[in-house]
């Protein structure tokens, strides 16, 4: 489609349309998932009440987690030594430890039986606490935020005896199943606790894209074993990007190895498959502080920003759709339009798998009105 306006004009119109939709009549196809927005200018004392308020607006955490084992996938992308300028990673591209601690605390207060923090630390088998220490974090702040808090590095087998297989509904776009660390199955409630960012390969990285890190590099990484998973994780997930080889043969291969070997085709589809295979029960996306231009300081140019906003919902596609609107993008955007200029929309692909809606008309937004929360990532 040829655009008869400037990119800036189009962006303004798209954002305007996105803002207008929630107030229009909702589509009558099933109950609208609810997504809460909260303004939160700092990681100070206002953070905990803001998160509590959001969870209350979603129906209360107790209903979701009481007596349950909760697994929280956080976003600690890249090596701990990367910084955007001198800014600590948590102020730009990592989920902030205070948001993690607040979420853990509220889970504990709501009666969670056990809370397990999960992340596949970059190219490492070291304990998650050691990874955090390298970022100048104090893991005890999180471990002490609630009773029975555990960490697990899910980049490999970890404390499990074997990998578990998660099947993708409808056969998936690329993979019909994934073999992952046991923690993604050994939980009653799965939470994606993400940072609100753009992404060089997937357009945006929110609660859905955060789940790409579920995949253990021992099976889906550059250093994966050929027949069996490697014992130790090494390197990143380049083979998921370029499709240069299949995962370890112990896992199921791609549905069709003849599909394009382009990262902008593959990553959105794989990510959609992952959240279909491992449904997200609660999506939390934080952008009290964040970065614009990409998912980490290695993407240039990029800049530190302070949107001062939190978003949470029980449906990850709906939550990400609201996040996109907050960022000044149209959640219904498709390939060729911002922020998916080069790639397919992960939200669209997840929607196709029945994970959730991305049309704001089908989403109930509560808390801070969307128009008051908008922070345009692209100026």
């Amino acid at each position: 489609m040829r655009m008869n306006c400037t990119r800036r004009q189009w962006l303004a119109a798209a954002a305007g349309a996105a803002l207008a939709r929630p107030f229009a009549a909702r589509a009558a196809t099933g109950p609208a998932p609810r997504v809460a927005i909260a303004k939160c200018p700092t990681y100070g004392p206002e953070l905990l009440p803001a998160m509590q308020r959001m969870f209350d607006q979603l129906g209360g955490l107790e209903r979701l987690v009481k007596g349950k084992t909760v697994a929280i996938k956080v976003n600690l992308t890249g090596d701990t030594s990367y910084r955007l300028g001198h800014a600590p990673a948590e102020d730009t591209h990592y989920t902030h430890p205070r948001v993690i601690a607040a979420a853990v605390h509220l889970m504990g207060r709501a009666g969670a039986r056990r809370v397990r923090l999960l992340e596949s630390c970059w190219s490492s088998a070291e304990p998650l606490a050691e990874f955090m220490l390298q970022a100048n974090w104090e893991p005890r702040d999180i471990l002490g935020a609630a009773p029975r808090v555990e960490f697990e590095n899910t980049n490999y087998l970890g404390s499990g005896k074997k990998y578990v297989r998660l099947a993708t509904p409808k056969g998936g776009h690329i993979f019909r199943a994934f073999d992952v660390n046991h923690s993604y199955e050994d939980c009653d409630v799965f939470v994606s606790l993400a940072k609100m960012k753009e992404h060089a390969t997937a357009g945006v990285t929110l609660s859905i894209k955060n789940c790409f890190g579920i995949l253990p590099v021992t099976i889906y990484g550059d250093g994966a074993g050929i027949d069996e998973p490697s014992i130790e994780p090494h390197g990143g997930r380049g083979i998921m990007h370029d499709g240069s080889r299949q995962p370890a043969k112990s896992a199921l291969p791609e549905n069709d190895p003849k599909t394009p070997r382009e990262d902008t085709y593959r990553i959105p589809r794989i990510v959609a498959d992952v959240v279909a295979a491992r449904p997200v029960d609660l999506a939390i996306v934080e952008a009290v502080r964040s970065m614009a231009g990409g998912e980490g300081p290695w993407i240039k140019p990029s800049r530190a920003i302070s949107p001062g906003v939190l978003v949470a919902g029980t449906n990850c596609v709906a939550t990400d759709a609201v996040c996109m609107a907050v960022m000044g993008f149209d959640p219904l955007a498709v390939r060729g339009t911002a922020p998916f200029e080069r790639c397919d929309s992960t939200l669209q692909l997840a929607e196709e798998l029945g994970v959730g809606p991305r049309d704001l008309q089908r989403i109930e937004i509560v808390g801070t009105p969307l128009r008051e929360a908008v922070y345009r990532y692209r100026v």
Partner: protein
Amino acid sequence: MHPNWPLRWPEQWRDPGTLDLIKDTPFGFLLFPSADGYQSVVDRARRLDITICDINHPPAGVELAKGEWPGIRMAQGQGDASGGPTGVPWIDSNGWLVRLTRVRKPGQTVWVAADPPKSNQIVPLPQHQVAVADAAAHGGCWVVTLDKDMAQGLAAGKPELVNGWHKLMGAIGFFQAHREWSAWPVDAVLAVVSSFAGNDEFFSQELLNLTARTNVSYSIVPSGGLRPEALRGLRAVVYPDAGTPSAEVRQVLLDFVERGGLLIAGPHWGEAQGAPAAGEPHPGYALRQFGKGRIALAHKQPDDPYELAQDTQILVSHRYDLVRLFNGSLLGSYCTVSPDGRRRLAHVINYSGDAGDDPATAYIAGRYRSAKLWSCESAGPRRLDMVVQRDGIEVHLPQFDVYGGVELET
């Protein structure tokens, strides 16, 4: 400043007049491969009170170590730095070698030299500066070795090369002016205890090299004549040797553990003392509590020094990192403390020789009254603002090409 730095005399410099190039420079020793063809140069040098040496026979009081060109290893024909097992650029450094040589030859001056560049190889100026800083920060002297292009260009007075030469002399002069730093002992959390010889020579020395890359601050302790004082104040000891330790070594290490230290050893350690320890297990080790400390015994004798360095870092824990560098994948650090304990000095070497685009931040454990940065690229120190962290401080480092020394006053 007394000239005391070594220069490998370039084979292209046959004219005695080329000695003018080292006039008023830090060079006090000229190293020749032989006297053949250089007699007139040698004669004039002696008249100028410059010491002449054979490259293979350093003067009394000097220990010559065979090193390598430090820097970021580049894949041939590629512009990008090649990745090591961690995926981060691979740094070559002589730091561990200088330190080991100093431990083995106390009181000796350590020179470190690498093979001269091949006839068609051009060594960029920053790499010379990095080599000087790498050796000097660890207490040694790099034997300056010019490539053919630079030697000929300097002799011909090419302005850009003369300018670069002056910068190199400035770097050497900087370290000469701070010669007292080389006497500052390492500020360590770990000791590597080994014979560093015989069957254990390669493994233990490679462990020193690779542990330095993990940024764990360690001291080098030969097992021969091991005394408890050598382990005082440390948190952990790694004993990498394949052989069973002598009764004396074993006793000193067990005493260290009983007082609260961590010992990391292989199965050749022998009978495991103590009881199974609580805490998060490491898949490759059995942890045992003994006295106030712990023993981590590897299930199998480590055969990969890289893996042992990584395991050691995890077993010791990043909680005890003395220095963490952010945007520092091309940087290396070496932490020392003044003899009176009042000042800490974190040598930071930029092995790329290029300030790059991303400014680095250093986290340094402890509390300090002031921080300043010394650099061989600027005159005098520069005050650094400190951002207080829970157990330490952060300083935002100004960008530098080669060397920054963060001096902290307690």
